């Protein structure tokens, strides 16, 4: 075997520490075998070339486009000295994108703010309108429904509405009366409704009206044999009210039981207390305004002062 092919019995001329020193940039104790490598790494660490610094203008333009420029910070003196003239002369000046976008952003923000500021007021208004509609529907719907039912009841005493029939339960228990849009719990009918009609020796307007309202409250559920009593009561009240129209009787009874109705005259003087609670916000079926509550009226729904037998109307019993 020739000597040139004999493998060296000694190890490499450098070890791991020498390699680490090369990577760390430590010079001075580099083994001769690694000196070419050291030169290569030194060239990699060498000074920047013109080519590597030629894109500074692009980087500055990107900086101006994306970073908000601060007017207070000025250039570094040593940085300005180090800056090549060729680079500054070719500095790109891009239009500041954020300046163009600012008005639109502000506009959007303002629009959003205006919308959000308008929302609560719109919500309040909507809620108020909805509440008014509900109240008006409850009062006037119940009222007109009652009046129409009353009218039909007067003509056909033994009949009752389908909805009322559907909710009819046994006497003595609490029932749900559905009249138009209103659903209110009412007391169960009194046993006197089903009693046979008795002669009325002394027709007292107040008691007649109270009885009328008791019928009125239970108009949808009269017993089959209560029609004759209702007709008799209706006839008496027609005489007192000066007309057989249900609205006339109704308004008369309201007046008699202590509901002074402004603008409504022609009734006999009633014995009820003046300035009692009114029924606000409902329409006069006869054409007059009942909604303008008198002085001292309270906006109340179902009364806690007395039993009127009619949902939404409170009655102060004299």
């Amino acid at each position: 075997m020739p000597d040139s092919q004999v493998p060296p019995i000694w190890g490499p001329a450098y070890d791991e520490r020498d390699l680490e020193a090369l990577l760390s940039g430590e010079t001075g104790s580099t083994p001769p075998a690694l000196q070419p490598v050291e030169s290569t790494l030194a060239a990699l660490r060498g000074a920047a070339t013109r080519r590597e610094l030629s894109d500074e203008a692009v980087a500055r333009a990107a900086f101006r486009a994306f970073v908000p420029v601060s007017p207070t910070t000025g250039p570094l003196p040593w940085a300005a000295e180090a800056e090549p003239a060729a680079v500054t002369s070719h500095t790109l000046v891009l239009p500041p994108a954020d300046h163009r976008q600012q008005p639109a952003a502000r506009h959007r923000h303002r629009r959003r703010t205006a919308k959000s500021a308008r929302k609560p007021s719109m919500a309040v208004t909507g809620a108020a309108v909805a509440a008014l509609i509900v109240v008006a529907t409850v009062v006037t719907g119940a009222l007109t429904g009652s009046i129409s039912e009353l009218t039909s009841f007067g003509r056909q005493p033994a009949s009752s509405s389908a909805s009322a029939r559907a909710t009819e339960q046994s006497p003595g228990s609490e029932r749900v009366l559905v009249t138009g849009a209103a659903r209110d719990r009412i007391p169960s009918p009194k046993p006197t409704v089903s009693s046979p009609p008795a002669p009325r020796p002394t027709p007292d307007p107040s008691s007649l009206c109270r009885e009328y309202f008791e019928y009125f409250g239970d108009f949808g559920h009269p017993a089959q044999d209560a029609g004759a009593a209702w007709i008799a009561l209706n006839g008496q009240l027609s005489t007192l009210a000066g007309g057989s129209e249900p609205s006339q009787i109704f308004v008369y009874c309201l007046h008699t039981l202590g509901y002074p109705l402004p603008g409504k005259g022609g009734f006999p003087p009633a014995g009820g207390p003046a300035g009692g609670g009114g029924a606000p916000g409902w329409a006069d079926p006869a054409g007059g305004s009942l909604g303008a509550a008198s002085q001292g009226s309270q906006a109340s729904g179902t009364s806690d002062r007395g039993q009127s037998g009619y949902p939404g109307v409170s009655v102060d019993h004299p």
Partner: protein
Amino acid sequence: MCVDTQHVVGDDFAAVLAAAQSGSEEHFAVLWRDANPALVRYLRVLVPDAAEDIAAETWVSVVRGLPAFIGEEGAWRAWLFTTARRRMLDQARHLRRHPAEPLDEIGVAEVPTAPGAEQLALDNIATESAIALLARLPEQQANVILLRVVAGLDTEVIAEMLGTSTGAVRVAAHRGLRKLEAMLTGPGVTSRAGV
């Protein structure tokens, strides 16, 4: 013109970074001049055809995140090279999806040349030779050596960047250096790096 970019910022890094973050273009230029040559060299070894483009994309990404950056100079360099590496991977992914078709052969006389290109090549022949040598190494070894030597990052930071262990980073670097030494001292190889 040759400007030593290895110690442009140094101890003033925190102040320069803060000024750049608050909008000073001149301070940002200092950061750029400090890091861009190393970045371009790193990219020229790994993606020679798109090094400048990826470097520009890297700086755009860095500029966008600059106001939120917190850290010292080592972290800044690690962030910069990590961003470059991500852009590099994006580029490779894009090329895989949209493979480029070669254009017709262009004659040497038709290749556009910038004025002074020859002079530039002569000025930086050592750096160019070193980059060419590194480009012949396996990618992982070249990557590790460049991140150690050019970017100046620690083994731990490189391991975190590459998602590997410090031991693997060290082994890859040492193997790369040995291979480099073999290339430089082998028969028929003439190194111009030390010229």
